[in-house]
């Protein structure tokens, strides 16, 4: 449940950045100009689409899978936990790469990207913890 809520918050954060990138929001409430520097850099695009769009898709996928895995038949499925761990693991790698680019190439830090990196890391930690608990729980039930 916590994973779904955190992912939903991420959907809105990434949508905000996407709307800025597409020009629907005039300026980021950043405090400094670094957000705009990062968002206007050439690394703000990935495979022809804004990085923020990939963020929206990532968080939306996490939200949908986590919500589906919270109730009903999928609630007991280990596959859901495994899928969440894999998706969020990919998110951590991508986020780590973006943070590296901010520090080493762009030389500017966007605080929304930092918040997103923290969210992604949190999602990965939660997914891994849930998966392990679930696996242990099912192992215990198997030996009951």
């Amino acid at each position, binding site marked *: *449940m916590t994973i779904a809520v955190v992912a939903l*918050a991420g959907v809105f954060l990434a949508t905000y950045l996407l709307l*800025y990138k597409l020009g629907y*929001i*005039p300026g980021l409430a950043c405090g400094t100009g670094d957000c*705009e520097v990062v968002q*206007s*850099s050439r690394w703000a695009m990935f495979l022809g689409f804004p990085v923020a769009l990939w963020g929206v898709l990532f968080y939306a996928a996490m939200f949908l899978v986590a919500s589906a895995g*919270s109730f009903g038949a999928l*609630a007991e499925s280990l596959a859901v936990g495994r899928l969440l761990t894999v998706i969020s693991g990919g998110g951590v790698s991508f986020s780590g790469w973006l943070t590296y680019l901010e520090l080493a190439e762009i030389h500017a830090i966007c605080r929304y990207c930092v918040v997103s990196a923290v969210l992604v890391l949190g999602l990965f930690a939660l997914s891994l913890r849930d998966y392990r608990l679930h696996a242990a729980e099912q192992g215990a039930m198997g030996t009951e």
Partner: protein
Amino acid sequence: MGKAARQAKGKKQSNAKPFIGIIIVVTVIGAAALGYALTRSSATATTVDANIPAGPAEGYLIGKADAPVQVSEFADYECPACGVFATLTEPDVRTRLVETGTVAYRFYDFPLPMHKNTWAASNAAACASDQGKFWEMHDLLFATQDRWNGEATSNPRKPLTELARQLGLDLKTWESCFDSKKHYGRIKGNQAEAERRMVQQTPTFIIGNKMLAGSLSFDQFKAWVDSALKSAPKADTKPAEAARKGAEK
């Protein structure tokens, strides 16, 4: 099914109501925040004094100078939102409002300090203006931001020269103008004009006597033009132009 499994399943089902409640709360807060961010540009329209005399600023004009609605845009060539406006909204503004004689449109450079190559871009446009191709260069600069901006290169002269070549400008003259930086005074004047008018972000538009921050869709732009048409036509930049002409003499 074992006892532990039944307990786990029961626990998950009992969590459904608070889960949905939390999701609704997060959705409402998120949607409200996005809604606020999206509508902020039109909500920040402020009334400005149309009679403020201008400094040595000199905007680039398109349309009839005495059109009933005077529009000024303050923009930075490296700003993404300015690029979106220039490529998506501005073509419609030109064909449906400028070419029909409703709007006189003036572009003022407002180079922001965090953009490394924006001065070079303004300079490139000013030099293209000398050969009567300001608006062509303006459009090309916004359409190719990622080729010459501060993140793409630390030496913008080369990609900007390529744009000048693409427009068919006399390259020798353009390069001589670009290198001499003779238009920096005009760019600085336009920047000072933006600061004097308390422009906070780019793009910012003054439509009639309303100042609007942020990119606008054509419908939004047209609504403000219609509003200006009803209230105070011919009120905005005429004093600015008069002051400029006075300063030139």
